[in-house]
């Protein structure tokens, strides 16, 4: 059964159709990629899934639940986490606090609990800190736990963002160009990381420009161009599709 499915989703901004009649599904446990030239509408798809935008028409279903119109915080609570194309860490909070914030939707402490530091809130906070430290350990960031997020090198910030997303214990992780701006060695490490996240039971939907990375780890690929799906299939099928080659290189290439 599909974990996430989009059925005939459209999104118009005024006269511009950013996403046209998109139907796709992500199977549980898969690594699925969304590729396409700049401006193809990939990030818009993420924003539709996570509740920043509401689809003009069509439905988005996650585990039998319709996500249309659900607020971003509730989408996160439902089990979907994401990273951003341009890193959006909380710059002036420590790496540890960033990851702890990521767990917010799994916490129950109320204002009164927090202000009075009730045993319940203290226990919960300790548990969350421990879980956050374990994640930092997994991502090799333990040494930087108390540094400000903004002080880390770029590649590491990308990893903090993924750790922060995983802190909410998502069943689906949306990665928006995680390899952007990283060097080849970091890309290799990232590929292994994405696979090991999947092996921990998190399904992954990936937007990526780096074709070697996409082809290396994806089980299924959807190609968008001008908001429309122009091809879908396994990496090998997509690579040979003439419409994909056209979209990327232009006609007559």
């Amino acid at each position, binding site marked *: 059964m599909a974990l996430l499915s989009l059925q005939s989703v459209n999104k118009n901004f005024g006269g511009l159709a950013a996403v046209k009649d998109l139907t796709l599904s992500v199977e549980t446990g898969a690594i699925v990629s969304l590729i396409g030239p700049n401006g193809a509408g990939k990030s818009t798809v993420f924003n539709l899934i996570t509740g920043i935008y509401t689809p003009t028409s069509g439905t988005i279903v996650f585990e039998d639940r319709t996500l249309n119109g659900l607020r971003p915080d509730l989408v*996160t609570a439902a089990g979907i986490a994401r990273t951003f194309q341009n890193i959006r860490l909380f710059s002036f909070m420590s790496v540890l606090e960033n990851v702890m914030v990521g767990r917010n939707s799994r916490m129950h402490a109320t204002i009164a609990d927090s202000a009075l530091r009730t045993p319940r809130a203290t226990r919960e906070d300790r548990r969350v800190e421990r879980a956050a430290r374990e994640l930092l350990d997994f991502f090799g960031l333990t040494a930087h736990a108390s540094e400000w997020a903004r002080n880390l090198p770029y590649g590491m910030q990308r990893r903090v963002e993924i750790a922060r997303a995983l802190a909410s214990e998502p069943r689906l992780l949306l990665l928006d160009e995680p390899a952007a701006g990283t060097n080849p060695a970091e890309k290799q490490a990232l590929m292994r990381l994405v696979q090991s996240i999947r092996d921990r039971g998190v399904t992954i939907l990936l937007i990526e420009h780096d074709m070697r990375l996409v082809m290396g780890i994806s089980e299924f690929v959807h190609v968008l161009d001008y908001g429309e799906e122009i091809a879908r299939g396994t990496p090998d099928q997509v690579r040979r599709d003439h419409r994909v080659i056209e979209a990327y290189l232009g006609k007559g290439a």
Partner: protein
Amino acid sequence: MSMMKRLLPIACGVFLLLVPLIDKNSSHISAYADTGGLVLLAFGLNIIVGYTGLLALGFAAFFAIGAYTYGFLASPLLGIHINFWPMLLVSAAVAAVFGLVLGAPTLRLRGDYLAIVTLGFGEIVPQVLQNLKWTGGPDGIAAIDQPRLFSYAFGFNPVPYYYLYLAIIAIALLLLNNLRYSRIGRSWMAIREDELAASHMGINTTGAKLAAFSMGAALAGVAGVLFAAKLSTVSPSGFDFNMSVMILAALVLGGMGNLTGVLTGAVIIGLLNFLILPQATNWMQAFGQLVHSNALANVDLNQYRFLLYGMILVLVMLFRPEGLIPSAVRRAELHAEQDIAIPEAAH
């Protein structure tokens, strides 16, 4: 160093407890107590501006609402006389509700736009209080009940108010410090840093911002009750824009987002306003009479207080924009170019 850090607050606390025994001048104690009021107000505004990053002007409106709530429910005006102690909570709750009322329609606003709307609210509240009949009009409410503790009546003696302020500030400090390092505090700061990312962390940004507004307003409400009880009277004139500016000045001077900084800023501004300016005026007038100088004998430094705040704000912005005792965060924000190596695109 950590020994120092632990002992310093205790030493300060003990010193503050002894102040009324050292300084027997009751007008001084009264000024210290009023300074305590400013500290509470600055704590409240700090939640909204310092933690959550929502620039709210017109904060004195919540102070007014707290004071008038007590005035209505504990004075001959309506013939209702509810006990002072529960009124601390009632007024806090009423002010918190007004915090929600103001917060709800302004949630989509940020920065300058939010500042303008809250500024409007800050102007409207004293105007309404002044122009309505049943709020006592420009004269306000007189003969407000003063607190009793068991058989001890506070009356106009400033000493018990001073201790009451100390106690409430200590409680507020404890609660706010707890909040800062909790799920709620982290949510507020995440919103300050990046609201969109915060909402994707599962933070209900609407709820968190409303919580910040109502918590801040509640503290102002408590300060309002204490203010009205100590003076035994309230009138609209005490809650105008100048008051809001004074609270914000305390925050900017001390350092937003850091409780120690906010406390320091509020104490400095409070002492300047309530003690130093009136005292210096007295001395200059006395000196003027001594040397038969009319100009000096009639000087009133209190008139220049906003000139002074303005100068302080300008100087702070020029030389220490993060405030005297900033949170580490703001220091870095404001000195980002000098102090912090910009991360390389790829290393």
